[in-house]
């Protein structure tokens, strides 16, 4: 596969959320505010990219029978590192607090393990890292789209700044996870009507 496709495919054509339908759980949970979604997206990008890089370097030494466990250990290490670092800076501490367990739960995000299993274990380190980063970016993009609508309609703000007129009554349904699922459905619908080859006959 060409490098360009490795990077561009996960953004749209084989987007991890809308096409592969992975990472749905966290995309319902962390998309209440744009700030949270942005930090989550960057965290997943970093975890996915660097875990793919490390495991791709190690790929020829990993015993086949325990490869999932080895992947898990490396991914868990990256997730804990990201969480610890977010907690250490004044600027990111409040966001880490708001995301609470969801940063730690990146480890259960199927995108990370899925890409390692499907790509990093069979490809050279640099393409693997790019594949990880691109999948993280594809995930992050959907997160930001969903968070944009949820924060705008649910809280009347964008990145914490008031944008809706003062009289706007915030919509509680939008804040709850079911609405994120409805929005995701709409995004999948839009993508499928653009990309005809995804449609079943």
């Amino acid at each position: 596969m060409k490098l360009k496709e490795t990077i561009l495919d996960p953004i749209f054509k084989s987007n991890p959320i809308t096409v592969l339908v992975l990472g749905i759980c966290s995309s319902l949970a962390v998309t209440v505010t744009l700030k949270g979604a942005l930090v989550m997206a960057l965290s997943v990008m970093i975890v996915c990219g660097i875990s793919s890089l490390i495991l791709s370097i190690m790929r020829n030494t990993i015993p086949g029978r325990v490869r999932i466990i080895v992947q898990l250990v490396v991914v868990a290490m990256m997730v804990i590192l990201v969480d610890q670092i977010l907690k250490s800076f004044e600027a990111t501490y409040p966001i880490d607090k708001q995301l609470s367990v969801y940063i730690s739960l990146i480890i259960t995000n199927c995108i990370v393990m899925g890409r390692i299993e499907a790509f990093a274990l069979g490809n050279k380190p640099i393409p693997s890292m790019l594949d990880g980063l691109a999948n993280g970016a594809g995930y992050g993009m959907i997160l930001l789209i969903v968070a944009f609508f949820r924060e705008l309609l649910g809280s009347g703000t964008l990145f914490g700044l008031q944008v809706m007129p003062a009289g706007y009554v915030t919509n509680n349904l939008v804040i709850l996870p079911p609405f994120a699922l409805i929005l995701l459905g709409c995004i999948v619908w839009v993508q499928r009507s653009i990309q005809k080859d995804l449609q079943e006959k």
Partner: protein
Amino acid sequence: MNTNSNLYTVIYTTVIVVVVAAVLAFVSQSLKSKQDANEKAETISQMLTAGGFGTKAEFQAMGNAKVLETYGNEIESAFTVDAKGAKVADLDLAAKEVFSPKQLKAQNYKVKAGEGYALPVFIFKNGITVVPVYGAGLWGPVWGYIAFEADGKTIHGAYFDHESETAGLGAKIKDDPAFQAEFVGEKAFFGQSPVFSIVKGGAPKEDGKSVVDNQIDAITGATMTSNGLDAAINAWLGAYAGYFGTATVPCTECSDNEKTVEE
């Protein structure tokens, strides 16, 4: 080399786990002081918010150093008290010692048991006393700080925080300034049961002010969080009754001349 032999697999996994553990231990140790500083500044900014020294957003914008400086300028004394209200120990003012949520959790077990606790009291120069409360919400712990006027029963302000309450519903105890504003001007009935109540369906009101001095409205759609917070406030303020004086019977009609019954 045969990467599928048993010996190789065992050695490989052992090495990986030891290396990862070493990396994590090193990172955790080297970042701990920064994380503790962040948590402490957060706790202090919550107490200052409850005490009405500024809004949470203002404290967040001013940064950790400024928050600690404000606290240092405003605090008069800080100490821990036992069930009878007697002072147990002083908190280190110079080091700006406060109780982290973890320490509150440890005390919460003793508060529930009804004995053996040493709860912190923070007295500010303008006469405001701030005390923490801690308990269980719907999904995780809820805690907060309640600031009392110099009379030791009128609430000056409150700030609450939570670990994982539902965004938009239970999370309103933290995010909704209107909920926290409800506490202002209410009174805690120390020595009575309940000390304070968060009333589902709304506290009876007259001219926009609650008829009974220790009642406020619960949050719509967040009954469990409201109940949890109510229980936390009652348990902790009950535990502080010894300090604030149990025998104060509030009187709604004679606000200037409240009946005080000595034990």
